[in-house]
Each structure stands twice: as structure tokens, then as C-alpha cells.
């Protein structure tokens, strides 16, 4: 470490030098922690299949690895990909339960892998499958993007307004309570877990899903949107829309954002039946 002429800063500088050591030390401890003896071995089983490769055949592959404290499926799969199988594909983006990219079936239940702790599985056996209802890209990676884009286009997932906004003028006031209600429904992250949980969607691929019905409810209560219930009926008033829903509510039970899908779908059903 080179020295400056300024002697008064020297002490402070040394102090900071030690900070760097603290950070380095924490790295070392972290590494050590990773190899603690006595941590259990877990087995992760994954479907492997590459539909774009004609020679690929679906298979289930077991990966055995040491569990580390606080290990999520994101951490486990990253480790598997770097050390055990360079060819395993899965989708992770934010790894914090915010972006909705990593939905998969974990021991049969659709959930976000990044928010799933391996320690939640007492048996130490975790079976991973790609989300059903979406096109399989490879292994655990599915094409939720295309599905969600089509859904958004189909339900006109945007504000439709006859009013013109002058953006240099004071914004239109909104009751705080109403804004909060819209926000509640706007929290959907399009992870597709509701769709993969849905018995209607499993059988009928044109079903709009809880994500689509929730989106319509979101715009229905938004004061900026001037569409009427008749307009919304044109979007979801059929058996591929609200009337296809059988209210089995696996969507509500599995939603990682705890959206009130049950109430909102019921609300839309009442509205649409009365149009």
C-alpha cells in the first residue's frame, strides 16, 4: 500500500486497511462454512430434455450435493451447473422472488425456486420439473414470456382512456385507498404459477388463467381506465375467460405474491354475469 504525504490521514488509512481484511476474512469464513462436515447430503432430481435437439430424450437425472446453510434452489442449481452438470438449463433472473422467472414444480408443487429453501424438505429429496402449460425450452426452462405476452395482448393489459394527459400539469387525484387497491392487484409478477396450478389451463390451453383475470380486475378498478363492464365482457366473457374458471383456487394457494385471486375472480364473475 503506497503512502500519501498527508500524515494526518495515515491512521485513518490503516484503519481502513483492516476493513479490507474483515471483508476478506468473511469470504474465507464463507468458503469454510460451505464445506462444514456434518451438513447433510441432498439429492436433487431434475428432468432433462432438449426439444430442439432431435437426439435428446427425456430423462431424470439425480444430483447429490452438500447442503449449505440457507441454501435455496437457486444456490443449489447454480452449484450443480458449475460443478456437476454444465448442460443443465433453468431460468433465474433476480433470485429474490421479485421477477417471477424461476417457477418450477418442486416435488409436484408449482413455486418459485429462488424462494425455496432446501432445508424445507426433511427427506432431502427434491424433484424438479418444468412448469406445465408452458412450452418447454430445455430442462427446467420454459417459455413463460410468449404466453404472458399473448395474455397481455389478449386482455388489453393497459390503460384505455379517453382523457388526454398534459404531463406538465398536476396529476389527476386518486383516492389513496383506491390507489392501494389497484397496487394490490398490480403486484402480479407473471410467474405463471397460477396457470401451472390451474386444472382448466392444464386441460385447455386457451384459458386466460388467473393472471389474466386478475389483470382485468386490476384495470376494472383503476380510475384512469374508462372501460365499462361491457368492454371487459368482450375480453373475458366466455369459457376461455372468466366462465372457464372452476374456482379450484390452486392459483390462490400457490401464488408467491399472495394475491387475493379468489376474491377478485369471484368479483369479476359477478360483474360479468350481470353484464
Amino acid at each position, binding site marked *: 500500500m503506497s503512502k500519501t504525504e498527508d500524515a494526518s490521514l495515515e491512521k485513518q488509512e490503516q484503519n481502513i486497511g483492516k476493513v479490507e481484511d474483515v471483508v476478506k476474512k468473511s469470504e474465507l469464513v464463507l468458503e469454510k462454512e460451505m464445506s462444514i462436515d456434518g451438513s447433510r447430503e441432498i439429492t436433487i432430481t431434475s428432468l432433462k430434455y432438449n426439444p430442439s435437439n432431435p437426439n435428446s430424450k427425456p430423462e431424470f437425472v439425480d444430483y447429490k450435493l452438500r447442503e449449505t446453510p440457507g441454501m435455496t434452489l437457486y444456490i443449489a442449481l447454480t452449484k450443480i451447473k458449475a460443478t456437476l452438470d454444465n448442460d443443465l438449463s433453468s431460468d433465474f433472473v433476480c433470485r429474490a422472488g421479485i421477477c417471477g422467472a424461476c417457477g418450477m*414444480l418442486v416435488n*409436484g*408443487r*408449482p413455486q418459485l425456486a429462488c424462494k425455496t429453501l432446501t432445508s424445507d424438505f426433511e427427506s432431502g429429496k427434491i424433484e424438479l*420439473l418444468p412448469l*406445465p402449460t408452458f412450452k418447454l425450452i430445455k430442462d427446467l426452462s420454459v417459455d413463460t414470456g410468449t404466453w404472458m405476452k399473448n395474455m397481455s395482448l389478449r386482455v388489453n393489459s393497459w390503460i384505455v382512456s379517453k382523457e388526454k394527459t398534459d404531463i406538465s400539469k398536476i396529476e389527476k387525484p386518486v383516492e389513496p385507498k383506491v390507489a392501494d387497491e389497484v397496487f394490490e392487484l398490480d403486484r402480479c409478477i407473471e410467474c405463471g404459477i397460477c396457470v401451472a*396450478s390451474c*386444472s*382448466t389451463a*392444464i*386441460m*385447455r390451453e386457451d384459458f386466460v388463467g388467473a393472471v389474466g383475470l386478475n389483470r382485468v380486475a386490476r384495470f376494472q378498478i383503476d380510475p384512469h381506465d374508462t372501460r365499462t363492464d361491457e368492454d371487459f*365482457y*368482450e375480453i373475458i*366473457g*366466455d*369459457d376461455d375467460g*372468466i*366462465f372457464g*374458471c*372452476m*374456482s*379450484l*383456487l*390452486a392459483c*390462490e*394457494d*400457490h401464488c408467491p405474491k399472495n394475491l*387475493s385471486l*379468489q*376474491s377478485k375472480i*369471484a*368479483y369479476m*364473475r*359477478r360483474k*360479468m*354475469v350481470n*353484464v
Partner: protein
Amino acid sequence: MSKTNINENIVESLIGTTIEKKKSRIPARLDFLQSATGLFLAVFMIFHMLFVSSILISKDFMLSVTKAFELSFLFEGGSTIPVFIAISVVFAVFIFHAFLALRKFPINYRQFLRLKTHSNLMKHSDTNLWIVQITTGFALFFLGSIHLYTMLTNSGNIGPYASADRVYSDYMWMLYILLLIAVEFHGAIGLYRLSVKWGWFDSGDAKESRRRLKRVKMIMTVVMLLLGAMTLIAYMKIGYEHQANYGERYTLSSNIGDK
């Protein structure tokens, strides 16, 4: 060039919308009717159970309930026509409900396979309940039809002995055991489903409301099954004791005292 009146249905089936380029309101009606017919049948089944189980109190009581349905308080001895009409209505609603419910069934191998795998993998209680629902619903197509047809053609033969003979001597008990199980599961689950579907009894906390509804549903299934089983046993017992006098009709004990 002249214009012929166009058939609305042809337009909708080809274009997907009505002539005004609007979506048909029929799906909304059908969805509503599926729920409405279901609700009607479920409520009917609850009362039906209460009436038939009147045998548990006494034969006299059961007979007077029957006679009340035959409108004996209006004309002497009653008439089977009101009963016939009532059964006909229920039968019609039953068929219509089955027709509407069919829209939701898996209809080919792939759908069936996917649904089955889905429910096996997911182990989600409401989804499994629906599997129960379609299984019992499917069974009811036949069990319910047989029962309803039998009653339609025997609308005069309802009474402590007549019914008991049917259960025991006519071997209907086998059908009734299955019918009882199918109906009680199907009805209770159906009522629960209706409540969450339309948001009834939603106290603001939907999850909590659903937990409560599910408990009510469970209790209802158990109570109705017990009641049904006891009633069936009661008829079996009467039928067994009465087998020698098959065909004889029960009359009120306060009358001439046929014992």
C-alpha cells in the same frame, strides 16, 4: 342484389361474435345456470334427506310426510300427480345440470392424462376435491337417472313399506349405497365450490372464509352420510321384516291398526 335475413347462430359459429360484433351472452347464462341448477339440486337433496330420514322417527311420521307431498290436506287420500310433477322437474334440472357440467369434463385422453398427473403431482386439496366431484358426477349420471326414473314410474309407491320393499326386496340397496355416497360428496363439495366461486360468505379475509367454508362442508358430508346410512339401515330392517308381505301398503297406526 337483395339481402336475406341471416341466421344469428351461423354468424356466431363462423365469426365468433354476434352480428353486432359483440360476444354472446350465452356463456354467462350457462355459467350462471350451472351454479343455479347445482344449488337447486343440492338444496333439494338436503330436504330430500330430511324427508326420507323421517322414517327414523316413526313409520307414521314418514307416511304423513309422504301424504303431505301428495297434498292429502287438499283432497281426500292425496294424489300422486304432484309427486310425479315434482320428480319430473327435479329430473329435468338434473339432466340440465349434467349437460352444463359436461363442459368442464376432460374429454380426451390427453386432457385426462394431464389432469390426472396434475392432481397427483400437486396434491392440492381443492383440486383433488374436484376430481372427486367429476368422479361422483359421472357416477350420478347413471345412479341418479336410475333412481329418478324408478321414482317417476313409482311416484305412487312411496311409503314406509313400499319404499322399504324397494330397498330390500327389489335389491335397490346396492344402488342406494353408491348413490348416497356419490350424492353427499358431490352435493357438499358443490355447495362449497359455489360459495367460493361467487364469493359468498367472504368476510374480507378470503382465505379464512374458505377455511371456515371447508369445515362446514366437511361437517355437512359427515352428517349427511351418517343420516343417510342410518335411514338406509332403517329401511333395510323394515324391508327385511316385511319381505313376506311384499307389496302391502302401510297405513297409519291410529287408523285400523295394521301391524
